[in-house]
């Protein structure tokens, strides 16, 4: 009896906490999307009206498509710039040449910094007049390349993507590195007997054997790309300026739910509908990606 009481005392407080502040809000998030909202007060049940509004009525429909397209672009660009370069760097560090320990620490350093710091730092660097990027270009006779990087639609989103890649490339690097370090030495010795080609070694041996790391890194990048909020918020502002060229689902959801710069247009109904759509999209595709990638993992 005392034992049962003891187990209850251990389990119930944390369980209640998660129930109240994780499970209940997430269930509510689904429910709220089906109601009309008057400011902070819940109104009448409206079925799928909020979903219809954000998906099929203007100007919401255009905004939704615009933001979603940007998220997709961000995901694929970071797949190459962050995970691709991360794999390459992991392979380089894995050789354990002199200095590898230092490079390993250096590549992960930006990862521990707040996105807010990284966002502001790059915003200052990319300033059209006083930013170090344009100053350097002018100083080396490449002044014609100097751009208002964040001020024009053609370069703004890519600037954000590069800032994100700089910030986070250390994460896939070290996850891939951990995967490589688990490859048994006998396998690598056997490969060395068979071929001299680095390419064959990477594509036929290392890449397949770090598949579990790839599964994790790809899935996390997917979830992260479609949750992207802080960096665009700091570097481009809540409206995804200029002219919504950097708008992503996270910003769009925030504006819809809590109002834009002027504080107007707060709509919890449409906001909840967007949250549900983003949530379901992430859950379905992240599940699918994990499932497909798991299948190609090999047990050593």
């Amino acid at each position, binding site marked *: 009896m005392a034992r*049962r009481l*003891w*187990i209850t005392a*251990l*389990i119930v*407080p*944390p*369980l209640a*906490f*998660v*129930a109240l*502040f*994780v499970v*209940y809000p*997430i269930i*509510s*998030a689904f429910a*709220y999307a089906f109601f009309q909202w008057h400011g902070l007060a819940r109104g009448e049940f409206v079925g799928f009206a909020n979903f219809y509004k954000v998906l099929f009525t203007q100007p919401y429909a255009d905004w939704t498509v615009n933001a979603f397209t940007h998220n997709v672009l961000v995901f694929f660009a970071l797949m190459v710039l962050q995970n691709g370069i991360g794999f390459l*760097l992991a392979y*380089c*560090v894995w*050789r354990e*040449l002199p*200095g590898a320990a230092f*490079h*390993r620490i*250096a*590549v*992960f*350093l*930006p990862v*521990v*910094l*707040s*996105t*807010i*710091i990284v966002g*502001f*730092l*790059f915003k*200052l660097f990319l300033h059209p007049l*006083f930013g170090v990027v344009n100053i*350097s270009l002018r100083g080396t006779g490449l002044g014609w390349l100097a751009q208002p990087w964040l001020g024009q639609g053609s370069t703004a989103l890519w600037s954000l993507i590069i800032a994100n890649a700089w910030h986070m490339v250390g*994460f896939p690097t*070290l*996850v891939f590195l*951990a*995967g490589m370090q688990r490859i048994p030495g006998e396998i690598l010795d056997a490969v060395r007997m068979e071929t001299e080609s680095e390419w064959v070694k990477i594509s036929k041996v290392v890449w397949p054997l770090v598949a579990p*790391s790839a599964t994790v*890194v790809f899935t996390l990048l997917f*979830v992260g790309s479609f*949750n992207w*909020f802080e960096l665009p*918020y700091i570097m481009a502002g809540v409206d995804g300026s200029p002219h919504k060229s950097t708008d992503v689902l*996270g910003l769009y959801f925030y504006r819809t*739910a809590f109002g834009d710069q002027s504080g107007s247009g707060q709509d919890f109904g449409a906001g*909840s509908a967007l*949250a549900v759509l983003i*949530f379901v999209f*992430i859950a379905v595709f992240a599940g699918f990606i994990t499932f497909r990638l798991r299948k190609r993992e090999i047990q050593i």
Partner: protein
Amino acid sequence: MSAATETYYDRRGILQMLGRDGLIQVILILNTIVMLGPLVIMFFAAFKTNAEIFQSPFSVPDFTNFANIAKIWTETNFLRYLINSVIVTGSSIVLILTLGTMAAYGIARYNFRGSGFVLMFFVAGLTLPLKLAIIPLFILMRDLGILNTQLSLIIIYVAMGLPTTVFIMTGFIRTLPNELEDAARMDGASEPRIMWSIMLPLVRPALVIAGIQNVVPIWNDFFFPLIFIQKDALKTLPQGLTTFMGEYTTDWGILFAGLMLSSAPVILIYIILSRQFINGMTAGAVK
């Protein structure tokens, strides 16, 4: 000989000169320059005036010029933000580790009906991005009357941190041997006594991993303060930084000094504990 073959031989020459390992070294050194360069520029600029920053962004400054840093210390709420971040992050971590260890210990050391379900319940939270439940959370905090308090942030961070922590701690506590526990039980020690004096000292390594995995995202978080906190005196460091960056838009020395000061604590701790940081932050991703 045509130009094309010449460049081909040139390239081969470079590869032969450097060798495979040489090429790898070049890639790594270039990458490290790219990784550290922006931080070095930031660090230098924190000691410069506007004119120096615009004319020679790469030059080494006079490190005895503390004008920017002094101005931040005296004219802004920077110290207040820093203290707020320490309070919020510290309380959250203590609560996460306490509650997380309690749940994990109960699940891992005792066989009771539904223990598998309880673990599932916690772990389900791992995959749910709590950001998307921000509207119900906002309303919940309002109903509890704790909007615009540090308690609202601490609660959210504990909720966010518990799933991973329970997951990591349960896995670890399951691996502990039974012998010590059984011997103590034979000697008549109570269950709480066994947990506190015998088992908890053994879980310290896992607590470090779980602590670091939580401390970085909580310390760096911006989203929840943005929604919950309006009062300037309660703002955390990342949130306060946005206020500060908006106020001093023309004084770049101050801006860089602010960024430098907010990143310095994390960078210093990271350099000292890099192994633990790397293990902790990749713990969920590396099996």
